[in-house]
């Protein structure tokens, strides 16, 4: 570790005071692989936009492919932004200020990345404004589009003061004043963000819950919302803090520094764990209701959905027990007792569980046959699909790295040097 303060950091004028950052050359060197991925991904996106979606392996049956699945996943993982904001500004859990900035950046990356992929995913991106101009309010997708767009604006406004607080930028009086004033309206934005997040996380679940044509995804519900609406909200709220815990840990490992105190980790774990326990409980009730009531009322046997290899009954077991109940108990009862490594491992499992749930809702739903003379189908994404998604991952890594280097993401970082 380079103990010599910021030795060889050519960009030291941009680095926050009182923290150590690796030399600029090394930083660039570490970013090179991501820049290469970014370039390849950009080419793939260009292909998809220029030549059309025939560049993907999606087809008329797999109208939603790996992009939608991963979009849903990263939006769920990005829920940490709204949830941390909600806890800090609305419920006044001041301890979480230690990860708030990082959570906002993560949220911004997840949402902007998801919207970017969505823009490639639709057949006519230039018509995106149609949804705003003549919306069909009965569609869950309309709700999603409106909320995600508004929320990205909110996240940008939340991200702005973090950027303006950069050592060099804040020397500009207008920026200094702006970041201060933006900070003052933050509770309002946190409230709006929470409201929007509730609705679009829910609507993303509703997206599949309303598919009466697909009994595998269809759920009955309360009022206009199927149960998946509520399950997605809770699961996203549970996964968000886990993902924050995970990214903080990764940032801490990569930079070889302690960034937050252990009790922040423990608090995140406890929040994530307790929400996940509730989620697992509700998800189990929902699954049983669906198996014993919804599906039979449609003249099917629930077990029939789990006979199609490779998506056999293991997938249900893995989603609810292995990646649901197990890590939730670890996080809930282990926070404060277990070492951080265990909490991180559990968080990884939580994130995997949420991703698996989104996979089941998108890919498995579409792969199952609906008519008896229909086929079970699977699909393999094309390299363009993978590359376009990796573009978002690389974009996220680069944005986060730059933010970590030049912005003050972890206010406790200086204090952590003492302990």
């Amino acid at each position: 570790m380079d103990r010599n303060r910021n030795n060889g950091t050519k960009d030291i004028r941009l680095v926050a005071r009182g923290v150590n950052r690796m030399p600029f050359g090394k930083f660039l060197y570490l970013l090179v692989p991501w820049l290469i991925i970014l370039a390849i991904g950009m080419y793939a996106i260009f292909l998809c936009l220029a030549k059309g979606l025939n560049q993907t392996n999606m087809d008329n049956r797999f109208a939603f492919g790996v992009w939608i699945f991963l979009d849903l996943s990263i939006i769920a993982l990005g829920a940490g932004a709204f949830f941390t904001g909600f806890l800090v500004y609305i419920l006044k859990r001041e301890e979480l200020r230690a990860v708030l900035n990082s959570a906002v950046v993560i949220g911004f990356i997840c949402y902007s990345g998801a919207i970017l992929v969505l823009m490639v995913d639709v057949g006519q991106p230039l018509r995106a404004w149609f949804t705003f101009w003549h919306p069909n309010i009965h569609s869950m997708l309309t709700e999603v589009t409106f909320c995600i767009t508004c929320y990205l604006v909110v996240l940008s406004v939340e991200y702005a003061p973090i950027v303006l607080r950069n050592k060099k930028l804040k020397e500009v009086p207008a920026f200094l004043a702006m970041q201060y004033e933006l900070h003052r309206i933050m509770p309002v934005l946190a409230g709006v963000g929470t409201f929007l997040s509730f609705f679009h996380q829910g609507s993303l679940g509703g997206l599949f819950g309303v598919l009466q044509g697909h009994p595998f995804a269809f759920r009955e519900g309360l009022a206009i919302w199927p149960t998946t609406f509520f399950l997605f909200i809770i699961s996203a709220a549970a996964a968000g803090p886990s993902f924050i815990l995970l990214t903080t840990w990764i940032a801490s490992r990569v930079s070889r520094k302690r960034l937050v105190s252990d009790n922040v980790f423990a608090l995140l774990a406890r929040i994530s764990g307790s929400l996940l326990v509730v989620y697992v409980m509700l998800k189990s009730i929902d699954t049983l209701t669906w198996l014993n009531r919804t599906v039979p009322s449609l003249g099917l046997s629930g077990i029939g959905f789990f006979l199609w290899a490779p998506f056999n009954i293991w997938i249900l077991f893995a989603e609810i027990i292995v990646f649901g109940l197990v890590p939730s108990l670890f996080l809930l009862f282990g926070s404060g007792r277990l070492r951080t490594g265990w909490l991180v491992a559990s968080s990884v499992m939580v994130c995997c569980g949420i991703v698996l749930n989104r996979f089941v809702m998108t890919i498995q739903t579409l792969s199952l046959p609906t008519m008896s003379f229909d086929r079970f189908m699977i699909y393999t994404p094309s390299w363009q699909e993978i590359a376009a998604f990796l573009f978002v991952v690389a974009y996220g890594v680069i944005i986060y790295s730059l933010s970590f280097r030049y912005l003050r993401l972890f206010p406790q970082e200086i204090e952590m040097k003492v302990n």
Partner: protein
Amino acid sequence: MTNGNQVKSLTGKKHNFGMVIDVDRCTGCGACMIACAVENNVPPGPVDATDRTGITLMRVYKADNGMDFPDNESVFFPVSCQQCEHHPPCVSVCPQNAVEVDPATGIVGQIPVRCLGCRYCMAACPYHARYFNWWDPVWPEGMERSLNPDVSLRMRGVVEKCNFCFHRLQAAREKAAAEGRDEIKEGEYIPACVESCPTSAMTFGDLLDEGSEVYRLAQSNGSFRILERLGTGPKIYYFSEREWVRNIAEKDPASALKRGATTD
């Protein structure tokens, strides 16, 4: 959504167009698929198109009784958009009103110029009857002269589906108007697939007209609909004298697992 009264005032009468397909008479020849594609200006698929990416607004599926030779019997199901009557799954999901039900005719219409290409409707349709334009439409040299002038072309990146050859209804209405009639006559408007069927397996007409052939067949004993249990009220009826064929429509797809059902 659409203003029903406005359309109704043009025709004076409300219709509910539907179709009955006698699968006992269907030979699986695929003439309806070809006629549909030609009528609706569906471009020929590029070389790398597959049966999963091509556009077949009408598609013939094969099913059998699962027995071994010599007891094996098969049946063909021509499946197009089933023109769901009650809460069509594709209509409510479209974020920008690009799918609309015409209240005067009951026809579920797709408006490609308004379509964003999000494909949510395709995911919602239990009949897989919606198709996406994965490629730019390209016609081989000379073939563009055979295009149907009554049907607009669709661009890359939008969804399309069967609309019961709506342009034929408009043509029939114009003809009726020219002859001073308020209403079209039975048989004046039929979709291309019905017209082309060599065994006359398909019957088309107004399900509200109790004197029509389509009404009689739809109400007859052997008529059934695919996935009626989903409650979407499809307006394409199938007809068979054979009980096992009628059972296929509602059978749990999982029960066909061992039989290796296929769409080929």
